[in-house]
């Protein structure tokens, strides 16, 4: 259990389809699947691997436990540790791995991305701290655009089906992913959600991440863009406090601007700080309650969809 935010590996992740009521427990997908795969190096030990990965075999001997085995050079055999130690000149041997720690998530995210591109689906990863108004913005967006664009939603929260129920009530199919104690969505969870949600060709998929401005920045879900929502009831210096997230986002939505007159939130200062961290970030100020700024948001969505269709056509 993580002492800072509660991340845990033994947390069961649940995916609930709000349309069918069906709930499925999944294992936390960051843990690599057991693979009979050990890389090998010219100077030392045995080599056991499956043939489902590409890597350099070099000129050494190796064993294929599933089908055949062959030894070309006795001194390379792991069954002769004394010789091995002499070759290595010590009692330990260093094996280069050069593996990205988040490799598994990144690969799953790329699969999701290809799946979206093939179907011209605009997938957006909505991130914010808890309570910034992501779900309220989605409810309003669904109500306003549902006759124009097919929208579906994957909701991420540690617990409860509340948000997915709100989305369903607003008129869009929703899947709730409960991460247990996990503090972010991962590509494998989104994939699981997609299997159940089955978003259609050319549709808009909103992935509402767990409210957290830290960890979701690290985990690619396969989305076209991250959209960070920052409400005026938070500090206007959040872009500097959480630069990774604002750096990763393409669009910043400053929400609840109807409350701006009542709080000390300097909109210009906030946007300047966001640009300090990410010169290319775009900002839209809006209020899902009063409707201010929504046209600009919808235009951004339309333009992003059109851009996706264009890319697919090329």
């Amino acid at each position, binding site marked *: 259990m993580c002492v800072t935010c509660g991340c845990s*590996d033994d947390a069961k992740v649940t995916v609930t389809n709000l349309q069918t009521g069906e709930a499925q427990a999944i294992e936390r997908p*960051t843990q690599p699947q057991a693979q009979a795969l050990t890389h090998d190096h010219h100077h030392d030990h045995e080599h056991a691997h499956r043939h489902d990965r590409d890597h350099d075999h070099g000129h050494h001997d190796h064993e294929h436990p599933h089908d055949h085995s062959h030894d070309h050079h006795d001194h390379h055999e792991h069954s002769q540790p004394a010789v091995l130690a002499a070759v290595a000149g010590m009692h330990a041997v260093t094996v280069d791995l050069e593996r990205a*720690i988040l490799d598994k998530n990144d690969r799953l995210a790329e699969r999701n991305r290809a799946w979206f591109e093939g179907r011209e689906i605009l997938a957006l990863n909505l991130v914010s701290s808890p309570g910034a108004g992501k779900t309220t913005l989605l409810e309003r967006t669904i109500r306003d655009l549902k006759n124009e664009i097919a929208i579906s939603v994957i909701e991420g929260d540690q617990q409860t089906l509340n948000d997915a129920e709100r989305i369903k009530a607003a008129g869009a199919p929703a899947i709730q992913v409960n991460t247990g104690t996990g503090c972010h969505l991962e590509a494998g969870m989104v994939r699981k959600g997609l299997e159940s949600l089955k978003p259609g060709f050319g549709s808009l998929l909103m992935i509402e991440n767990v409210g957290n401005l830290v960890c979701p920045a690290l985990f690619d879900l396969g989305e076209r863009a991250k959209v960070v929502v920052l409400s005026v009831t938070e500090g206007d210096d959040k872009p500097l406090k959480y630069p990774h997230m604002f750096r990763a986002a393409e669009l910043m939505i400053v929400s609840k601007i109807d409350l701006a007159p009542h709080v000390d939130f300097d909109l210009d200062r906030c946007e300047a700080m966001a640009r300090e961290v990410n010169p290319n970030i775009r900002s839209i100020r809006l209020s899902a309650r009063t409707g201010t700024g929504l046209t600009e948001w919808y235009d951004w969505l339309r333009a992003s969809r059109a851009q996706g269709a264009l890319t697919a056509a090329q």
Partner: protein
Amino acid sequence: MHEMGITQSIVAIVAEQAAGRKVKRVTLEIGQLAAIMPDAIRFCFDVVAQGSALDGAALDIIEIPGRARCQDCGAEVALAEVYGHCGCGSRRLERLAGQELNIKSMELEIA
């Protein structure tokens, strides 16, 4: 933060690659802009490694400083933070290094 989950991934990947052999040392490369605190990884590592092939293994972390190239003047800039400026005033920086999050190598015991 997320270092616990990251450490679990590290231990799982290395244990898998070690295929039952005892791991004496693990070397990581962590960029200083990667949003990962090496101290938090060190803190988690011993706990997570317990009972695995990595139990008792040493952990070396090579920290890689942030570097970027200015997209306006082409100069190379050192980055201490995830964002920064070039001497020419530009903020349009292409990151060259500092975001690494890799398992570089493992040292296996030879029986």
